[in-house]
């Protein structure tokens, strides 16, 4: 669990150029991390590469917070 979170966090910090402390499970990409919709699409793409999987568009649309992403990856 922590492992997935840390890996996701590292990607978010790098991609969105935000402070590590802001990346919590509850943080919303758009509201808290100042990502636009294209940023979120890009993040999902990077997560797919990092975790070697494909996230269907319908699933990707439900990912709004850091926790959504982490939980989705853990559910696989």
């Amino acid at each position, binding site marked *: 669990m922590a492992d997935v979170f840390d890996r996701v966090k590292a990607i978010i910090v790098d991609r969105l150029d935000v402070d590590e402390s802001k990346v919590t499970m509850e943080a919303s990409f758009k509201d808290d991390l100042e990502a636009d919709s*294209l940023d979120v699409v890009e993040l999902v793409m990077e997560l797919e590469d990092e975790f070697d999987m494909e996230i269907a568009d319908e699933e990707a649309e439900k990912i709004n917070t850091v926790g959504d992403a982490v939980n989705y990856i853990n559910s696989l």
Partner: protein
Amino acid sequence: MLQGKSALVTGASRGIGREIALELARQGANVAVNFSGSEAKAQEVVDEIKAIGCNAFKVQADVANEANVKEMIKEVIAQFGTLDILVNNAGVTRDNLLMRMKEEEFDQVINTNLKGVFVCTKAVTRQMMKQKSGQIINVASIVGVSGNPGQANYVAAKAGVIGLTKTTAKELASRNIRVNAVAPGFISTDMTDTLTEEQREGMLDMIPLGKLGRPEEVAKVVRFLASEDASYITGQTIHIDGGMVM
């Protein structure tokens, strides 16, 4: 000008697409030559590109079929490593008066000429976003701006391509991906060779420059849009029509 860049040109076995593929290669680009039916013609284009000294291969795909297109893009990236330039050129015509046009004639043209651009653009976007650069050039048509009797399907598709070009340009500009269109007028190809002398005369009367265009006159504009010389141009539709529509 395009040394080491890699390009995919759809519908590149004949006509304007063929000329675009060759022109990009003359500027140093490696080119994937997409075709749907004419494999032998596609091979000729590949051979000509290799003779110029660039890499090329042919790849069959129906541009409106997402699964086909995904495979094609994968292959281009596997062969060339990157995908810098996409030229959406593949197109068909099924001309008929609106009153006579069958639903399938409308659907076929919209599928290949409009949906095909959407499918191919979506499929390359991932790679271009990763690269943080890319050029997409859509081959629209002047009739998509002016309308043309007997071509309701074709005109609707081409006008759609112009709108799609603008939206894609706006969505991807922040990722350094430029998207532009060209709108050729009457260009001398297989498509226009079938015209009668009378039709030809009628066309020439509408063209201020007084002659049909040549495929290479379209290809050179595409090459310009694909190059860094056009680095501040996105979302535009360049008319290449001898002044027919201003």
